[in-house]
């Protein structure tokens, strides 16, 4: 038993789930998947579950579901088969066997997939920038207003520069902001959304900036792109 404990400890994180564990037990004990000795496999399976509990490892509930299934099959196999004249009853193991075969098939398919020439692992395409650690603009994805709102929210969360003091704040109008943005973007052609804000900004700055951008997008004077959800939003001059 101690040897077995060692084995199981090593393998704890290896199983993807209860079916994976069953396949492992079948293979390891060189059992025939089409004729699983249900009593034996149940015992092995429960020993593993027990081990997990001893080790205080959190078990996915699915492991227990399959344990129950195994016990049910075992019970059904103990029930004497009806008299021979009647139609032969279905093997209680059939559904489980089919599931295991199906799962094994996909495990193999996954291996096969992993063996193919994977992009950015085995094969590469043109156009990777040396600073690909930063935003990679070669993979632009058009952002929609929702993305803009998400970016807006994250800026709002960061806008902590609001001190409680009542001062006459210089109000920038949306029209002013539009001119400001167009002037800046006219020079550099593209800008990150965050770069449009002053270093210290207030909620009002963000609101006005977002409104200005929405307006410019509506007028199709700007184009807005984002590589991935929650990524930097880039604004481009629309030619």
């Amino acid at each position: 038993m101690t040897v077995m404990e060692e084995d199981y400890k090593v393998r704890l994180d290896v199983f993807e789930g209860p079916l994976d564990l069953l396949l492992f037990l079948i293979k390891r004990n060189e059992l025939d998947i089409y004729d699983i000795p249900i009593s034996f496999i149940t015992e092995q399976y429960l020993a593993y579950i027990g081990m997990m509990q001893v080790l205080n490892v959190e078990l996915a509930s699915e492991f227990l579901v399959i344990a129950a299934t195994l016990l049910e099959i075992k019970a059904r196999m103990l029930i004497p088969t009806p008299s021979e004249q009647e139609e032969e009853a279905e093997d209680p193991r059939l559904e489980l066997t089919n599931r295991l075969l199906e799962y094994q098939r996909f495990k193999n398919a996954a291996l096969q997939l992993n063996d193919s020439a994977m992009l950015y692992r085995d094969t590469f395409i043109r156009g990777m920038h040396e600073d690909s650690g930063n935003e990679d603009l070669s993979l632009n994805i058009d952002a929609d207003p929702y993305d803009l709102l998400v970016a807006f929210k994250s800026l709002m969360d960061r806008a902590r520069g609001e001190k409680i003091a009542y001062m006459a704040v210089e109000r920038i109008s949306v029209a002013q902001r539009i001119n400001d943005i167009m002037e800046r973007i006219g020079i550099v052609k593209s800008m990150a959304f965050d770069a449009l804000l002053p270093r210290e900004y207030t909620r009002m700055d963000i609101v006005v900036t977002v409104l200005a951008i929405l307006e410019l997008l509506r007028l199709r004077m700007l184009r807005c792109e984002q590589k991935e959800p929650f990524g930097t939003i880039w604004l481009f001059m629309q030619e």
Partner: protein
Amino acid sequence: MEREKLIAIIEALIFASDRPLKVKYIDQVLSIIDTGDVRVEDLIGELRARYSTDSTGIELAEVADGWQLRTKPQLADWVKRLNIVKPSRLSTPALETLSIVAYRQPITHAEIDYVRGVDSGGVIKTLLDRRLIKIVGKKELPGRPLVYGTTQEFLELFGLKDIAALPSLQDIKQISAAEEELEKAQPELPLPTHETSDEE
């Protein structure tokens, strides 16, 4: 126009395109000239053959229903030394889920869970975020569950022409049977190791 020149044009078009270039777009570009009865597919075939020699580092691959220039897999280690690419990695659960979706699409979350025997919610989300799978509709079942399918990006990632280019599950069974035979022929490996468990 002479054949050589047409091939050169096609090569330039494929090179300039940042996604796999479909034949219909090449046809469109070439439609302004008289190409006689030359088929673009034949020219591409010829171009592809030129890249197949060892003296070139790139190859012409048929991916996602288009054509793309890609570095040869046997040179991957060299390209990686440039340190400019983020390596692409997929975990075992992600690969499993992806192959289930690929072969059984359109498929629901519950059906994936049933095949894998575990909840696949987290994996599905990761695959959606990486745009390797997408929601393709709803199934006419109580609760109208969403169904998932693979994407263009999936085909590009694995260099597949289309979904039909996946090896049939039947073939995979044969391959794995053959591998098992090989395994048996070899001296028994000490158990357990990660490698053996991965090959089950």
